């Protein structure tokens, strides 16, 4: 709708909107996170949900203990290779539309444990991540910022056309293969459909 006409009508006391705007407005203000934490980042996540930072202001205070009722997965903490299959399985069990925030250095890259034999180098190797938050651990403000970023992302999603989000594309995958516990490492070590190792550029 033409912005000029819209503002002209609003001056006359006529409120106009689109289905897309109302739909996205509703979605972005009721993101229900999945109630789970993996390490110390989860403590910051809990703090963000409590009165001082008050995640309820964003309509996201309803932490759901079941993945079936959750819209958002906050991967808060170190993802060990032993835990990674369960995290991917939880993601698969969430209904669309679903979003992922990777919270903290460990969840986005392995963090201080990157060289460890037992730590996954970032959950984005197996599932698509919408917002990455650096920090060790990130302060609750950083998580609030991630929420606002995610809200903006949801708000900007077009429901029709080529640019529509994956959950409205019938062919787009909603579930991702759960890695197997192998003899030496997880098999496969990453999901090539979601993540590719960064290319090396020789400096000279």
């Amino acid at each position: 709708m033409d912005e000029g006409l819209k503002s002209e009508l609003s001056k006359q006391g006529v409120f106009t909107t689109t289905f897309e705007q109302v739909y996205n407005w509703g979605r972005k203000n009721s993101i229900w996170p999945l109630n789970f934490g993996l390490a110390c980042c989860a403590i910051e996540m809990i703090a963000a949900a409590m009165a001082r930072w008050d995640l309820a202001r964003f309509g996201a205070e309803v932490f759901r203990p079941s993945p079936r009722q959750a819209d958002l997965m906050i991967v808060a903490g170190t993802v060990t290779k032993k835990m990674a299959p369960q995290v991917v399985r939880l993601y698969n069990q969430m209904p669309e539309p679903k979003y992922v925030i990777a919270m903290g250095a460990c969840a986005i890259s392995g963090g201080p444990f990157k060289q460890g034999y037992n730590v996954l180098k970032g959950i984005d190797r197996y599932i698509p991540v919408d917002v990455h938050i650096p920090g060790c651990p990130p302060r609750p403000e950083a998580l609030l910022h991630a929420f606002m970023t995610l809200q903006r992302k949801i708000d900007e999603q077009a429901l029709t056309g080529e640019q529509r989000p994956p959950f409205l594309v019938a062919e787009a995958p909603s579930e991702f293969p759960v890695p197997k516990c192998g003899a030496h490492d997880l098999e496969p070590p990453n999901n090539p459909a979601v993540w590719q190792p960064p290319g090396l550029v020789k400096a000279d």
Partner: protein
Amino acid sequence: METLDQIKARAEAANPGARLEIIPNGSPSGQHSILVDNQHAAAVAKFLRDDPLLQFDYASNVAGVDWPDTVLKKVVKVKQVVEGVERELDQTVEEKKPGYLEAVYHLYSMQLRHGPLILRLRTADRAERNHLPSLTSVWRGAEFQEREAFDLYGIVFDGHPDLRRILMWDEFKDYPMRRDYVEPDDYEYEPTAHDDVLEKARKHAESAV
């Protein structure tokens, strides 16, 4: 607490056939330890726990140690006949020392408020003969820590009630805390690579170009 020599003498007297050895620690901490032979380890452990003067009722820590195979190079003088004249020549002799695994128990007495006493058990080698007697029957708290030593070092504790991997998954085959552990090669770019990581980065850069 009695000295290690006194403990050793009394433990050997109480358990005929047991061989204890005091392993000195040359560092400033000077925490010397006692090495027990595997056959009598459980009996000696029971003695340490139940003896009225010792009463080591608390195993605070069980650690694994990996001692890899080492090659010692020695210069030996060898007499050889060269061109009819007997001469002394230097010859380097390589002496192979087989490696072994150790389980180290740190014992305290809550009753008498003394400790630690450091008890060592040693396997015959690092490959097949990697068995040690479990001391879980003496100190119940050692159960999970022995499982951890089994998981990360591959020490098999005979008589352990539930010897499974505890940190890694059951299908895992390696022992990641051993010094010859080779981790899976899934290097990715790091902005501040250094030491081993830098070495790895160089290798990957060479193979990429």
